[in-house]
């Protein structure tokens, strides 16, 4: 039973962090229909920001979230103003290839600056601590904190999008840019802010994840893929969709744990020989594929 519970808790916690990763992607897509292939690279930048700020300032990595958010926001706005704005004038293919190029650029810049070596957080208030929830469920404190803070950040962005004038202006820009312009909404600035907020949320996620994952310049791709799967599952452009789909994807990555539960509860020998952990992401992409075929707009999607 402890195996099942551990996997459930781990899946939900990882899913919460993942949903924050996907949030940025869904905001940017929702507002301006751009598929940002460089999304994972922003996460990588967030991870480096968290790690290096913590090391330089000698503070706990969890306290570096504001720095990561600031870096993400500024970088997002700069990317929009200096690059994406011009891509929007081109055809769809230019936008796809453009963000793909941005991904390669950021990744190789990181390689140049930080080198190819893996780096990880080895010290911190919560690093190495764990909490025993009873019934054999033990969770690392860093993951719990990351899940909690991800949920808080997610909630903050949701409030911003749904309960403020600014959020309404963003939604208006997303639904009908021309109409929004007629209403006096500075859509250009809205686009820039969408990039700023989108990138800030993913760099925050990066600074949270670096507490328990190591970082190298290639880490972005895995998260880009996961974020795509989450956004597809939750529905392109849907904020609550990203949250729930994030948790679903987190649970999907725990399929090997559920498999182990069955294996050792019922003592089935052949099941122990199946290398499930080697394929843990396969199920995510399978779900991605199925949702694309069966329900292309996702569970909560409102954009076509």
């Amino acid at each position, binding site marked *: 039973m402890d195996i099942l519970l551990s996997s459930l808790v781990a899946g939900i916690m990882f899913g919460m962090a993942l949903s924050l990763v996907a949030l940025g992607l869904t905001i940017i897509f929702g507002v301006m229909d751009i598929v940002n292939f460089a999304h994972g690279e922003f996460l990588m930048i967030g991870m480096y920001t968290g790690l290096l700020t913590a090391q330089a300032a000698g503070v706990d990595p969890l306290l570096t979230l504001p720095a990561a958010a600031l870096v993400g926001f500024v970088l997002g706005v700069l990317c929009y103003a200096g690059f994406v704005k011009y891509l929007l004038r081109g055809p769809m293919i230019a936008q796809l290839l453009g963000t793909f190029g941005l991904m390669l650029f950021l990744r190789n810049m990181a390689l140049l600056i930080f080198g190819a*070596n893996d780096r*990880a957080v*080895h010290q911190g208030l919560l690093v190495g601590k764990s909490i025993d929830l009873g019934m054999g469920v033990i969770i*690392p404190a860093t993951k719990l904190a990351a899940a909690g803070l991800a949920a808080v950040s997610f909630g903050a962005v949701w409030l911003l999008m749904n309960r403020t004038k600014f959020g309404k202006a963003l939604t208006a820009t997303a639904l009908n840019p021309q109409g929004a312009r007629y209403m006096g909404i500075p859509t250009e600035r809205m686009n820039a802010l969408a990039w700023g907020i989108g990138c800030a949320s993913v760099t925050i996620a990066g600074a949270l994840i670096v507490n328990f994952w190591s970082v*190298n310049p290639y*880490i972005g791709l895995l998260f880009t893929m996961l974020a795509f799967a989450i956004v597809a599952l939750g529905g392109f452009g849907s904020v609550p969709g990203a949250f729930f789909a994030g948790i679903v994807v987190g649970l999907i990555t725990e399929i090997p744990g559920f498999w182990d539960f069955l294996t050792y509860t019922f003592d089935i020998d052949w099941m122990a020989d199946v*290398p499930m*952990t*080697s394929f843990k992401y396969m199920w995510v992409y399978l779900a991605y594929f199925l949702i694309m075929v069966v329900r292309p707009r996702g569970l909560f999607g409102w954009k076509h």
Partner: protein
Amino acid sequence: MKRTLKWTTAAIVVVLAFGLLVPTVVWAKEIKIGVIYPLTGGAAAAGRELRAGAELAADIANNAMADLEMAMAKNAGIKSMGGAKITLIFKDHEGNPTLGADLAKKLILDDKVDGLLGCYHSSVTKTVSAVAEQYGVPMINGSSTSPGLTERGFKWFWRTTPHDRWFTKDLFELLKGLSEGKARGVAKVSKQDIMKLASACEKTEWGSFTSTLVEEFSKEYGFDLRKSLLYAKEAPDLSSEVRSLKASRADVMLFASYTSDAILMIKTLDAQKVQPKVLWGQDAGFETPEFQQTLGDSIVGILTRTVFLPKVVEVKPLAGKVNKMYKERTGNDLSGASARSFTGLQTWVHVLEKAGSTDPKAVQAAANAIEISGSELVVPWAGIKFSTSGKEIGQNELGSGLIGQYQKDASGNIGLEIVYPFDVTTADMIYPFPKW
């Protein structure tokens, strides 16, 4: 006019002839060895050690050091080649087999190296040795332990280190010894208490082969292998792997990991409070200084197979002297990685000395006939002599392994103590593995 032309032509011919001649004379004084190691990437820490080990051996070979009881320290350079000096050309393969093969081609075709040394990762050694074989360039390997490497019948590949079949067998011998009451300082353990095994190995050439060996030996020695999983050494997170190991409720856990994944694995086991009775690493990451420095006290009780421990110094004065030189340069003691890259290059020096030339054929004949006495080596082996017939070709037949355990001494320093073979132990074994 005609005469001027004639004289000019003659002058050019003379200059050209000299030009061709002079460098040949100069080049003969230098022997180029291409050294391919992982200097960046997940195994960069090990790469730095390997590099420092090879550089130290080259320095000893190139300079006469009277106080060192080693044949290669007696002369400056290779005596049989008129004191020719060894130059090492380092390349970084980043743990990538394709890149390794490309670098090998560059070293052979562009740098015109006389031989190769490397590459640590068995997967990279596999592709690099295939390139060396294709071009007929001799390659000596000091630290890749996948057994298959010397089972390919290659004519230009020699391996000095013992391989994983021997090492994995050592582990099972240790477990058997535990159940027979042979382990020093440990009362006889019932076999039932250590019956259940689980392994997690990285999934390239080296780790996946170790995984297969664990399966083979579990059957042979009558243990119950509950789980054996493979993972990517670049994996930034191993929590689902660790939960799977935990779910198997294994008494003995075995790992084949490189540096960053070994650290991550132990951190995750600690975070999940997984409590096996024996925790054993197949060298590599488990032995790097980074592993010890990063994890601190939590590694006390972890076993790792190795070929060299600082404790060897107590029984081998020569190793002590070399270790001192190494420590002056790097601040670290010799490890399995650096001691073996040192020995790899040392073997190159002996082979070149015997061959008396860099002609590949002569080097090949010398390598096949070489016999280096154990007293020359820093590693505790009987010597170096390569097999030339049978299933394995080019494998050193005189190597042997050790199993070390991290223990804390009276002054609070953590280091490896020898716990196997049982007749050369340096401390009592800690059993079972302490609580995290």
